[in-house]
């Protein structure tokens, strides 16, 4: 393992052994529907509350990923997971179902890439043979925590995004699997002063631009070297801003940039700018993107999930929204 700037280069290139995604009914109508392992018909997932449903989705994604990798619970050394709810209850409660150790993370919607970065570090350093990285979110539980009650009849502003109901998990291992994590860039908190909680795309775009450009610089690559530059949940508006921000600094990513939030929904009802939430990048990566990579259709992917590190208290007190983005570079290696 070596370091340059804020980028960690993995010597043993940890592999993604297996992955799994559980998505909600609305999400399954979009492009990821046929790639996800489980598409829920009922967003309650047979539970009595949405929080329990979110927890069950996450737990299911974790156990499915382990099962698909042909492993047993005893083979897993650590679970790295987090979610959006207060005190990361979904992740901690999901970890009750398993015997292996759990490290709770909070990085809002960029939890997927943060967990992959940390998981890869542990596996690469030999501190863990198999590590599970997972996260998820639920529209109803996020809406209740961050916004209004579900049934309240209010108009959504056109910048708004729709929190994805979905969970994704993957197993990182020293051997096996055709996709390797070759390096990762740690994010810096960026805050350019956006205070509008309905405009997460604009708040998060500078963080994504910062991390992606530092990644290019540290690794000596340029946008054209990647088949896909995948961001988490910037949405349509945030993606436009990201392209502008990077273009301004001399990196043209418009040809191969894709945003998970922008592509996840097919029906444009009131999702407006697209999906958001920790489950957004987790479910798109662990279904559509990794399946395509496994088949060799994408050779090199930069995955930079973005997170808005705000709470209802901070936004209520008029604070602006600090944002972060962590990136990991994935490579197909036959």
């Amino acid at each position, binding site marked *: 393992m070596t370091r340059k700037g804020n980028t960690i280069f993995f010597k043993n290139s940890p592999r993604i052994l297996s992955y799994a995604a559980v998505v909600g009914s609305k999400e399954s109508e979009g492009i990821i529907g046929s790639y996800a392992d489980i598409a829920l018909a009922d967003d309650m997932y047979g539970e*009595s*509350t949405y*929080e329990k449903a979110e927890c069950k989705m996450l737990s299911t994604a974790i156990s499915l990923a382990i099962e698909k990798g042909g492993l047993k619970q005893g083979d897993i050394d650590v679970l790295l997971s987090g979610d959006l709810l207060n005190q990361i209850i979904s992740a901690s409660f999901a970890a009750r179902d398993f015997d292996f150790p759990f490290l709770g993370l909070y990085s809002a919607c960029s939890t997927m890439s943060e967990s992959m970065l940390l998981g890869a570090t542990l596996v690469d350093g030999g501190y863990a043979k198999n590590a599970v990285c997972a996260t998820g979110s639920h529209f109803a539980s996020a809406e*209740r925590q961050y916004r*209004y*009650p*579900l*049934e*309240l*009849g*209010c*108009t*959504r*502003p*056109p*910048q708004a995004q729709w929190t994805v109901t979905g969970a994704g998990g993957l197993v990182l291992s020293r051997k096996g699997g055709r996709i390797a994590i070759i390096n990762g860039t740690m994010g810096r908190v960026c*805050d*350019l*002063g*956006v205070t509008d909680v309905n*405009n997460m795309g*604009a708040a998060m775009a*500078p963080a994504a631009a910062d991390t992606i450009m530092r990644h290019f610089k540290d690794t000596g690559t340029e946008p054209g070297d990647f088949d896909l530059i995948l961001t988490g949940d910037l949405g349509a*508006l945030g993606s*436009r*801003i990201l392209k*502008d921000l990077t273009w301004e600094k001399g990196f043209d990513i418009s040809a191969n940039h894709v945003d998970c939030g922008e592509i996840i929904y097919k029906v444009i009802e*009131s999702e*407006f700018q697209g999906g958001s939430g920790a489950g957004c990048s987790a479910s798109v990566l662990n279904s559509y993107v990794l399946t395509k990579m496994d088949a060799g259709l994408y050779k090199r992917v930069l995955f930079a999930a973005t997170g808005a590190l705000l709470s209802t208290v*901070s936004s209520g007190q008029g*604070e*602006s929204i*600090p944002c972060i983005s962590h990136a990991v570079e994935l490579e197909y290696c036959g």
Partner: protein
Amino acid sequence: MTGKTRENYNRNYLNYVKTQDPPTKHFKNCLAAFGVGGLICCIGQFIRYTLEYVGLSGDELAGATSIILIFLGCLLTGLGVYDRIGRYAGAGSIVPITGFANSVTSPAIEFKTEGWIYGMAAKMFTVAGAIIVFGVCSGVIVGLIYLFL
């Protein structure tokens, strides 16, 4: 909180974001609000006429009409219809009394999972509380103006 204050916000970026923002469709929202709000009021008026025909009058008539509208607002909230109307109605479904019913019922449904007392009952007025406070305040102010005129 930290060294990040309003003074060192990136003005350029914020101005740039403003140019990229999709505009709120004020005209369309106003039109929808006019239509939906008007329709709800027409339904209210229809209920009033019907009750008048049945034989109610005065305060009883006004009370009964409001009660029926509030009931309908709560029922539609419980059935998950009112939020869908609200999404397209601009403010048309918020302003009438049905909107107030919706703002009380929706948190009540939502927080029922946290128990009847500390969940449903305590959180029932999270949205409507503000309406009540400022409603009463503006009522007092208008009343005082009326008194001295």
